[in-house]
């Protein structure tokens, strides 16, 4: 170490002198990446606050053209049909608050139940002793290899047989109880909790159930929250399965509603202003959720995929 510290000034100086140029170039690339990442978000906002007439008259204007909230009104169904058509929108009714509520209900139901049941299973797989444990866990792991598309058609048939087509429960049910990934993810964390902590609680007279709720779950709150937020985002953004299951407004979630909104407007003369306003409304809750938990998620995301 001593030699390293003494040689550092002499050997590093030429490197450091050369470095700023490379560093500047690297920061330029980084800046460009951030620009490409964020620009579409600004463009959504700029378009949503413009009028459709303005958009076609002045497509390159970096600022909103004819600043207006008309797009948002249309997306939220606050505009009369005639007014909407006049503004370039579709006359069909859209019940955005309902889709928003549906999305919230489905995502909350899936996330709450899935995390809770998966945590219970993960506890049984990591802290309880029972015969056949590793075999059953192996089966769960193998389930992780089955791609989602493969189970979608049979699950659709099953949900149909259960008469749950076009219900929120039908959308939530397949992922409500568990995903192999959630079980696997939480088991990893539970296994790292020192045995001594659990034993101390046992000595203190706590039963295993109490240990799960009072010791293990609180100690794993960071991974539980991370997994919860990621699950919420995933179920909020899911499109294929809700598209298969829901047919009417009663069970339509935001992703499906957006696609319907798009399909309702004519191919020529799409209601871009309304569509982008709707897009923003659909994306906003996840942006807010992420803003609240960003630091935790960002620092623990590496764990999710690799371990």
């Amino acid at each position, binding site marked *: 170490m001593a030699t390293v510290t003494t040689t550092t000034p002499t050997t590093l100086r030429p490197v450091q002198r050369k470095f700023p140029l490379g560093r500047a170039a690297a920061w330029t690339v980084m800046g460009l990446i951030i620009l490409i990442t964020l620009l579409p978000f600004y463009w959504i906002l700029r378009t949503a606050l413009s009028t459709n007439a303005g958009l076609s008259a002045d497509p390159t204007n970096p600022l909103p053209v004819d600043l207006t909230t008309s797009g948002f009104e249309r997306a939220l169904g606050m505009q009369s049909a005639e007014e909407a058509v006049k503004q370039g929108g579709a006359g069909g009714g859209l019940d955005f608050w309902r889709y928003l509520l549906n999305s919230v209900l489905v995502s909350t139901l899936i996330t709450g139940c899935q995390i809770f049941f998966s945590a219970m*299973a993960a506890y049984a797989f990591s802290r309880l002793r029972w015969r056949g444990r590793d075999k059953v866990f192996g089966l769960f792991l193998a389930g992780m290899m089955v791609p989602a598309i*493969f189970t979608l058609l049979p699950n659709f048939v099953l949900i149909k047989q259960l008469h749950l087509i076009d219900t929120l429960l039908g959308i939530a049910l397949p992922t409500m109880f568990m995903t192999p990934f959630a079980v696997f993810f939480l088991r990893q964390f539970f296994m790292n909790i020192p045995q001594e902590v659990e034993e101390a609680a046992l000595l203190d007279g706590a039963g295993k159930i109490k240990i799960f709720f009072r010791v293990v779950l609180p100690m794993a709150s960071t991974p539980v929250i991370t997994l919860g937020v990621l699950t919420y985002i995933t179920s909020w953004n899911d499109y294929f399965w809700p598209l298969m299951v829901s047919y009417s407004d009663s069970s339509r979630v935001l992703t499906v509603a*957006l696609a319907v909104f798009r399909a309702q407007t004519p191919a020529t003369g799409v209601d871009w202003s309304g569509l982008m306003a709707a897009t923003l409304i659909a994306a906003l809750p996840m942006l807010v959720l992420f803003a609240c938990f960003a*630091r935790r998620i960002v620092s623990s995301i590496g764990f999710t995929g690799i371990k």
Partner: protein
Amino acid sequence: MTIASSSPPSRLPRGDAERAPTTPRAARAGAGDSGGDGRLAAVFIAPAFLGFVVFLLWPTLRGIYLSFTRFNLLTPAEWVGLDNYVRMVHDPIFWDSMKVTVEYVVINIGLQTVSALAIAVLLQRLTQSALLRGIVLTPYLMSNVVAGLVWLWILDTQLGIGNEIVTALGFDRIPFLADETWAIPTIALINVWRHVGYTTLLLFAGLQAIPNDMYEAARVDGASEWRMFWRITMPLLRPVLAVVLIMTVIGSFQVFDTVAVTTAGGPANATNVLQYYIYGSAFGRFQFGYASAMSVALLVVLSAITILQYRLTRAGRSDLG
């Protein structure tokens, strides 16, 4: 833990009295000997196990079964043996959609992996800022539907800002999603935009595991950043990179949402990816048996890729030290 420090032995309930004085190791062994927590475990695992069997295991088996049947949802499934598979092998649209899917995966994964690696290395070598990492992740918060719609607007041939930039740079206008040759690369790019942040963070986590002294030592020896990347970063990151590749390739094969909202398979089947074709067969033409057979084909392809990639990873792991 407060529980640990404040636990006089006298407060032990009677049932545990016998095990109480033993060392932790003995207590552990005792729990194992008595058959453990079988009943409690059964209760704890019941909901997840139910979900696993009903919505994962059973559907998998049923999907394989349905692939040997003719089934339209209205009448009971009728066993037809290998008919669906024979039809699949002779179906030019199936092979086309397979080709389109592979083309998509190659472009998507190629670009995504290279850019994620570049961004992860830049993040690691330039700054440890969590804010920047958060920004990189933001597109991941969008649904594929939202991402598809936004880029549909940006790349719109008449009013989109995309072509304005292209022409400003001195190129001809590009019919991004309306042209047979451009459509798949465009969709691949849209999904790179949405997913690259997540991949970046996975790789970034792998980079964090590389000890910083290695870079320090290399710099003392006068190694350039470029040389350090190839001599230190790449060899040490390879196992992580391999796992990330397996995950992203499997995800990429299942492209659907973006196609559904941007091109709906067109123009002229140019973006009719496998999952979209399966969806169309099932819900457009109610050929659930045929759709299931194609799902089995997709499952076989994905399993083969996974096994192959695991093999390659294992082979490469030995020389990492």
